[in-house]
C-alpha cells in the first residue's frame, strides 16, 4: 500500500506539468523558440514546483506546530500566521504597493510571529494553550482589519484581494520558485536537526525538560522557522487552508508511527497533495483555473471526516 502510493505519487508529479488546458507537444520542448517550450518551462513547471514545495511547507509546518502545541488543531493557520500574511497583502493592494505584494505578505506573517512571541514572553511559563488562544484572537482581529481594507478599497482592488485569499500557485519563470524551494528545504533540514528534541517533545514538555531538552529554546527556534517558511509560502501562493491540518493526520493514520519518524512522508505527501489539487484546478474549468484553495478544501474536508469516523469505529 505504502510503496504503491509512493510510486503513484512519483508518476503523478512527473506527469503533472504535461497536463493543462493547452496540450504540449513533447518534441518541441528542447526548442526555445516554440510556444510549447515557454509554456512548459516558464509556466507549467514553475507551477508544479511551487505547488509541491508550498504543500510540503504547509504539511511539515502543521506537523511541527501540532507537536509543539500538543494540539491536533495547532497549525500555522490556527495561530493567525496566514491571516497576518493575507492582511499584509491586502494592505499593499489598497495603499498602492502593488509591486511589493510578496514582501508585504511576508512582513504580515513575521509581524504575527513577533506579536505572538512578545505575548508569550509575558506569560509566566511556556503555556501552549494560551498561545493558541492568542492566535485565534489574533486571527479574528486580522479579519476585522481585513474588512476595513475591503471597505476602503475600490472594486478592482477588492477583486484582487479576494483572488489572493482563494490561493493560487501561479508563478511565472523558474527563478521565482527559488525562495519557496529554499524555505521548504531549509525547514526540512532544521526539523531533521531537531529530530531527537521533537521526539521528546511529543511526550510532554515536562518529560522533555527532565531528559535535558531546553524546551523554551527549541520551541522558539522551531516556531520562528515554521513561521518564516509559512510567511514565504503564503506571500507567494496566498492562504491555502487544510493542508497543514489534514496531511499530518492522514499520513499518521496510514503509517501508524510517531510523528518525528514521519517528517519526510508528511513533507512529501503535503507536496503531492497540492500538486494534484492544482492539476485538478487547472483541468477542471473549461476556460479559467479554479482557485486551488477551493479544491484543497473540497478534497480534504470530506476525506478528513471519513478518516475521523473510521478511527472512531
Amino acid at each position: 500500500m505504502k510503496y504503491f502510493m509512493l510510486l503513484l505519487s512519483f508518476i503523478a508529479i512527473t506527469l503533472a506539468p504535461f497536463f493543462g488546458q493547452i496540450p504540449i507537444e513533447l518534441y518541441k520542448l528542447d526548442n526555445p523558440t516554440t510556444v510549447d517550450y515557454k509554456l512548459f518551462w516558464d509556466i507549467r513547471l514553475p507551477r508544479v514546483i511551487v505547488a509541491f514545495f508550498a504543500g510540503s511547507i504547509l504539511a511539515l509546518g502543521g506537523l511541527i506546530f501540532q507537536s509543539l502545541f500538543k494540539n491536533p488543531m495547532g497549525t500555522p493557520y490556527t495561530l493567525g500566521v496566514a491571516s497576518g500574511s493575507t492582511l499584509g497583502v491586502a494592505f499593499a493592494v489598497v495603499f498602492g504597493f502593488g509591486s511589493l505584494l510578496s514582501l508585504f505578505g511576508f512582513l504580515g506573517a513575521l509581524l504575527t510571529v513577533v506579536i505572538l512571541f512578545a505575548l508569550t514572553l509575558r506569560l509566566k511559563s511556556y503555556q501552549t494553550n494560551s498561545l493558541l488562544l492568542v492566535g485565534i484572537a489574533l486571527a479574528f482581529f486580522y479579519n476585522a482589519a481585513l474588512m476595513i481594507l475591503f471597505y476602503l478599497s475600490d472594486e478592482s482592488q477588492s477583486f484582487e484581494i479576494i483572488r489572493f485569499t482563494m490561493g493560487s500557485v501561479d508563478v511565472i519563470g523558474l527563478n521565482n520558485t527559488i525562495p519557496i524551494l529554499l524555505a521548504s528545504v531549509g525547514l526540512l533540514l532544521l526539523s531533521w536537526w531537531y529530530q531527537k528534541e521533537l521526539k521528546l517533545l511529543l511526550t510532554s514538555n515536562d518529560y522533555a525538560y527532565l531528559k535535558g531538552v531546553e524546551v523554551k529554546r527549541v520551541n522558539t527556534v522551531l516556531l520562528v522557522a515554521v513561521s518564516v517558511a509559512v510567511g514565504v509560502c503564503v506571500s507567494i501562493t496566498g492562504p491555502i487552508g487544510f493542508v497543514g491540518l489534514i496531511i499530518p493526520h492522514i499520513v499518521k493514520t496510514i503509517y501508524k508511527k510517531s510523528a518525528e519518524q514521519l517528517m519526510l512522508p508528511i513533507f512529501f505527501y503535503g507536496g503531492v497533495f497540492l500538486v494534484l489539487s492544482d492539476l485538478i484546478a487547472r483541468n477542471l474549468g473549461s476556460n479559467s483555473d479554479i482557485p486551488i484553495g477551493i479544491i484543497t478544501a473540497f478534497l480534504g474536508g470530506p476525506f478528513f471526516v471519513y478518516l475521523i469516523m473510521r478511527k472512531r469505529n
Partner: protein
Amino acid sequence: MLTIKNHNSNILTDISFHLKQHENLIILGSNGAGKSTLAKVLCGITPSNNVTINGKKITQLKTKERTKLINYIPAKLEIFDEYLTLEQYLDLSRLHTLLASKNILKLLELEHLKTKPCQQLSSGEQQLTMLASAVLHNARITIFDEPTANLDPKKSRDVYALLKSKLFQSKIIITHDLNLAYRLGYKILYIKDGKISFFDTSERFFHPSNLDHFFASSVQKVDEYIMVNL
C-alpha cells in the same frame, strides 16, 4: 546534597529541608496539600532559586548535569503522540545507565508490550513503564509521585522490592500508601496545607500517638502493618 530553603509560592509556605547524600525521603500529606507542587519545584520543572543540588542552584546547572542529578516520575504518564511505543519511550530515558533496556523490561514483565503505543497501555502498565524509565535514566536523585497508585497487590509488592533494590541511588517518594512508607522506613516529611508539619525519622512518625495526631482515628498500627481503619 539537596537543599530547599525558604521556598514560598501560592501553595507552599516557607519550605526548608536538607537531604544528605544517599539519603531517602518519603513525602506524605493529604490530597491537595502541595506534595506534587513541591516535587516539581525540587526537580526544576517549576524553576526556583531556593533549590540547591550539590551546592549549585538548580536554575544555574548545565542541562546535562541536571539530568544526571535529578529526575521526576509523575503520577500519570503524559504522552501527546498516539503512536509512540513503550520501547521508544524507554529509549528516550536511557541517559546515565549501562543497563540494557531489555533487562528492565524483563524484570517488570513488560516485554510483551514493548511495541505497543504508550497511550494504549493500561494505567498500571503505564506506571510500570515510568518506573522502568526511572531505572534507565539513573539520576542521583529520583522523585516518585505515587509509584504504586494504579497497581494490583502483586505488582505493588514488585515495585516495593524495586524501590528497596540498589537500582536507584537516592529516592524521594510521594505516597498515600502508609504501609509502603512504613515498610521502606525512610525519613518522613509530612505536608499540611503547604507547610511542613513533620520532618523526622520513620520510627517517630509511626508512633501510635503521632498517627492519631495526623490521621485522627482513620489509621491504625496492627502488629507490624499500618492499616486504614474503614
